[in-house]
């Protein structure tokens, strides 16, 4: 690595940590690399370092949005929005009632005409009904225009509020909040329009149209139970095919030797064990990563036995593509639990070319010493000292100690 790059790596200044990153760090939701980035920043930034200490002290450092808590903005904002939408709803309701009254009036005016000319009048009524369909759309349209006109003035008011107020709060907070409000307010606003009893009795054609619309909506909406059920099914099917695939692979291996029936019985029982135990830890990369993180956390908390159990589980799983890292940590847990033989066995599996090869070799030498196998340890240390690796110096020192 060039000096320039080393220099950048050690001394580059970075931006401060966001609240989200702080929370994720404290709640252990970051990968090793991300943790490193946070820790690196903390070394350079006393402000962030003290802040994170403060957050760590909060007994209930749940997901509370501390920023909103700090300024009390969120609540104020919600109340503000609530008033705005209430006003919009009221204006819409007034407009809608006005529209209904108007249509009503017109229909009453035309009633005698229809009675006197039943033939063509009938079709005319239908026409009326269908032509008034767009008029119902006035409801939502009116809402929209209301929103549009309300928003800019709202923004103006915010600005006047000045420094600590929403104006200081940037788009990231306000925009989603506004969007949520949008969504919420749409529902109650459109409902009164469709359920108005007057309308249903007086204009059945109308009612039917809205009913159809509601039905359509129900089938399309992701919130509808039908939609959710089909989704669930999909998930189940996917899960099932996964298991099936696995069992097929197994059966191919096993049927070659003994009788087919016997193999099948064995195979199903084996699968049973897999399903409740290890499948989660090894079936996907994501869960593997999770298991690794869990184990590492337990490890750092000094719970070596628990961590070791996870590593061993992962290693015993069929799907595990063993890499040096896993063997290394597994060995380390054994070492700390003073199971030197197991530790040595694990570290022996970290062969040259694997990640942590050098570390494992060095630690193996230590384990050999602890296990009383000094001659083997010496041999290994000599090997380490002969090569120009990370532990050359340490191996030489250790050899001197042993002599």
């Amino acid at each position, binding site marked *: 690595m060039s000096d320039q790059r080393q220099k950048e790596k*050690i001394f580059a200044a970075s931006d401060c940590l966001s609240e989200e990153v702080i929370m994720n760090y404290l709640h252990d939701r970051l990968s*090793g*690399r991300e943790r490193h980035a946070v*820790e690196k920043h903390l070394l350079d930034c006393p402000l962030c370092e003290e*802040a994170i*200490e*403060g957050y760590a002290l*909060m007994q209930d450092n749940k997901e509370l949005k501390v920023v909103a808590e*700090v300024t009390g903005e969120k609540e104020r904002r919600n109340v503000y929005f609530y008033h705005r939408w209430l006003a919009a709803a009221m204006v819409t309701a007034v407009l809608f009632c006005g529209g209904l009254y108007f249509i009503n009036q017109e229909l009453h005016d035309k009633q005698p005409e229809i009675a006197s000319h039943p033939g063509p009048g009938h079709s005319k009524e239908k026409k009326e009904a269908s032509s008034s369909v767009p008029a119902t759309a006035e409801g939502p349209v009116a809402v929209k225009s209301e929103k549009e006109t309300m928003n800019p003035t709202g923004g103006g008011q915010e600005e006047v509020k000045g420094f600590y107020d929403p104006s200081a709060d*940037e788009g990231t907070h306000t925009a989603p909040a506004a969007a949520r409000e949008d969504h919420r307010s749409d529902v109650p606003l459109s409902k009164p329009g469709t359920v108005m009893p007057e309308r249903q009795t007086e204009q059945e054609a109308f009612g039917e149209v809205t009913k159809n619309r509601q039905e359509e909506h129900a089938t399309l909406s992701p919130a509808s139970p039908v939609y959710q059920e089909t989704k669930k099914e999909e998930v189940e099917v996917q899960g099932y095919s996964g298991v099936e695939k696995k069992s097929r692979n197994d059966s191919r291996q096993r049927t070659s030797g003994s009788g087919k029936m016997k193999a099948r019985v064995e195979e199903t029982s084996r699968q049973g064990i897999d399903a409740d135990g290890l499948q989660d830890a090894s079936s996907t990369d994501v869960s593997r990563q999770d298991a690794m993180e869990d184990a590492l956390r337990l490890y750092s908390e000094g719970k070596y036995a628990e961590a070791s159990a996870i590593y061993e589980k992962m290693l015993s799983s069929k799907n595990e593509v063993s890499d040096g890292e896993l063997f290394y940590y597994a060995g380390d847990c054994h070492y700390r639990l003073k199971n030197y033989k197991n530790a040595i066995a694990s570290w022996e599996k970290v062969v040259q070319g694997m990640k942590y090869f050098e570390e494992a070799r060095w630690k193996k030498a230590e384990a050999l010493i602890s296990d009383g196998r000094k001659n083997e340890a010496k041999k290994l240390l000599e090997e380490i000292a002969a090569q120009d690796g990370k532990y050359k110096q340490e191996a030489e020192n250790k050899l001197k100690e042993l002599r």
Partner: protein
Amino acid sequence: MSFSFKKQLSQLTDRELILEYRSSEEPGYAGELFRRYRHLVFGVCMKYLRNQEESRDAVMNIFEKLLEDLKKHEVENFKSWLHTVTRNHCLMFIRSSKKMTYASEETPDESMEFNYSLHLYEENATVRDLSRLDDCIKKLAETQKKCVELFYLEEKCYREISAMTTYSMNEVKSYIQNGKRNLKNCIDGKK
């Protein structure tokens, strides 16, 4: 405040915001600084006051003070200045309310560490000549050297380093801190 103005604000550096605020006295500029750092100020207040309500109040007070102070004083490094102001505010508050939740013996020690931290802020910007970095790394104590290398060059986190060495997390952290300080001293000495 228009959307484009807000967008503009978010692109300005701390220094630019301060300069704009000083010349225009438009609170929006200081507001942007507040938005950037309020969660950190809150965190620092929490560390000293250990009370959410008091910390929240402290954040508001600090930024109100900041509105005035930014007009009066030249602030070169906003982050470190804000840190100092926040700490002082909290210590004053503790003293005035005689609420020594923070053990009194710890305070002088803390402020010493703080001076050092301030020093760090400046040094980060001024350290340029690091061509002898390699030599300096070699001169570090073995423990520091190993941790510094694993942390900075191999980008491992404390937890991973602790797992790879036999040091505890706290040891790892202090080896890295001390190693880094020694590196700086070494490089500066050779300038």
